[in-house]
C-alpha cells in the first residue's frame, strides 16, 4: 500500500514492540488492521506523567490515530478499545513469540486484515479463555500456518507437489517451496505418511505424533523463510522452561 501524506484515525491496532527514542519519546512497531505493520513516533511517551505510558501496551486492542508519511509516522492519539486481562506466564511468552514472527516475516506497510483478525483472535484467547480450554500447541500451529498462507508461503498438504492425490499409506517428505514429494527422505527432511499430511491439512492435531510433526514442520519452514535469523523469543522460552 502506498502512503502519501495522510491522516488516519480510529484504526484498530496492536503494539508489537516499543523502543526508547530520543530523550522522552518512544518508537512503536504496531500491527494495524488496514495498514499492516508500521512505525510510529509516540512523542513524550516516556515522560513520567505521560498518559500514553499506560496505553501503549502489548497484547491490548488499541485504537490509534496518526499522521505523516514514510518510515516513521507520528502517533496522534491512542486509546484502548477495551481492556483484556494481561497475559501471564507461558501465555505471555507465546504472545511475544507471535509478535516476533510478525516482526520478522511481515514487511512494513503491507496490509493483512485477515491475518490481523487471526492475531487478535489468538491474543484474545490467550488473554480471556480459561487455562484448561486453550491448547497452546494447536493455537500456535494454527497461527503459524495462517501466517505463512497470508504471506504467500502457503503449504500444500492435501495433494503432492505434482498435484496428485495423496496415498494415506505412502511416505512423503515436505520440501519448502515445493511441497510433498513421495519418498522416504533422509537426514533433516520432514517426513510423514499421506494420512498424517491430511491431518495437518485439516488442522487436526489430536494425534500426538501429528502434533509433533506439525511442530517440526513449522520450525523447518519458518527457519527457511527467516534465512538464518534467530528467533529470540523461542530461545528465551526454552531457557525459561529449563530453570
Amino acid at each position, binding site marked *: 500500500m502506498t502512503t502519501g501524506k495522510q491522516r488516519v484515525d480510529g484504526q484498530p491496532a496492536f503494539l508489537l*514492540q516499543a523502543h*526508547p527514542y*530520543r*530523550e*522522552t519519546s518512544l518508537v512503536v512497531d504496531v500491527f494495524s488492521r488496514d495498514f499492516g505493520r508500521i512505525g510510529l513516533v509516540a512523542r513524550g511517551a*516516556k515522560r513520567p506523567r505521560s498518559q500514553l505510558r*499506560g*496505553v501503549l*501496551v*502489548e*497484547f*491490548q486492542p488499541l485504537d490509534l490515530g496518526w499522521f505523516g508519511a514514510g518510515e516513521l509516522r507520528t502517533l496522534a492519539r491512542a486509546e*484502548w478499545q*477495551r*481492556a*483484556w*486481562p*494481561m*497475559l*501471564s*506466564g507461558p501465555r*505471555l*511468552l507465546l*504472545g*511475544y*513469540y507471535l*509478535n*516476533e514472527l510478525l*516482526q520478522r516475516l511481515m514487511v512494513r506497510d503491507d496490509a493483512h486484515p485477515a491475518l490481523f483478525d487471526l492475531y487478535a483472535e489468538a491474543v484474545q484467547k490467550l488473554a480471556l479463555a480459561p487455562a484448561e480450554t486453550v491448547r497452546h500447541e494447536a493455537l500456535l500451529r494454527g497461527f503459524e500456518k495462517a501466517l505463512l498462507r497470508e504471506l504467500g508461503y502457503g503449504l500444500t498438504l492435501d495433494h503432492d507437489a505434482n498435484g496428485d492425490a495423496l496415498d494415506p499409506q505412502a511416505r512423503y517428505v515436505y520440501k519448502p517451496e515445493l511441497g510433498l514429494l513421495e519418498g522416504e527422505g533422509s537426514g533433516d527432511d520432514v517426513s510423514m505418511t499421506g494420512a498424517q499430511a491430511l491431518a495437518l491439512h485439516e488442522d487436526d492435531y489430536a494425534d500426538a505424533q501429528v502434533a509433533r510433526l506439525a511442530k517440526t514442520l513449522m520450525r523447518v519452514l519458518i527457519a527457511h523463510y527467516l534465512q538464518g535469523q*534467530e528467533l*529470540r*523469543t523461542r*530461545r*528465551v*522460552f526454552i*531457557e*525459561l522452561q529449563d*530453570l
Partner: protein
Amino acid sequence: MNTGVLDELVSALRCLPSVGPKSAQRMAFHLLQRDRAGADRLARALGDALTRLHNCARCNTFTELEVCERCSSPRRDASQLCVVETPADMLMMEQTHSYSGLYFCLMGRIAPLEGVGPKELRLDRLLERAADPAVREVILATNFTNEGEATAHYLGEMLRARGLAVTRIARGLPVGGELEHTDIGTIAQALSERRPA
C-alpha cells in the same frame, strides 16, 4: 584542525541512554567551553566509580564494599527478600518506610523480544542469594509491565520449585484513586484480581 579527540568525546557521550548526536554535541561543547571544572570533576567521578564500585555480593546493587551497608545491617529483617528490577525501584521501596527486609536487584528484566533471558539476567546469582537459609519469603516487586510480569512469573516458578514461599506485590487502583478517573486497563485488571471483602 584535528578533531579526532572531540569526535571521540561526542561519540562517547552517546553511550548515555536517550542521548542522540545533537545532544551529545551540545554536552561536549558545554563541558569544554563553559564548565571545564565540571568536566574535570565528571571525568574523575567516572574514573573513581569505575574502579571502586562493583555489585554487592548479596543484593547486586552498587557498593564500594564487598557487601553493602544495607545487606550487612543487623536492623534489617533477613527473612524477607524483595526482588526489584533497578536500584531506582529499590529506593522507591525504601521511601515507603514500610519494608525492613533485604533486597535483590536484577539490574534488568526478562525481555524476550530483545533476547534477554535467564542467562543474560544472570538469575543464577538470585538463586544463590535466595538459597540462604535465613530467607523465609521472597517478594517479587518487578514492574507491572508485560516484561515485569514475565519476569515475576518465571522467578516465582523457579523459587517455589526450590521450596521458597513467594509473594507478588499487589496491584489495583491507586491510593485515593476514584474509578471515574482511573484508566480502564487498571480497572479491568483490578476486577479480574478482585479478592474476598
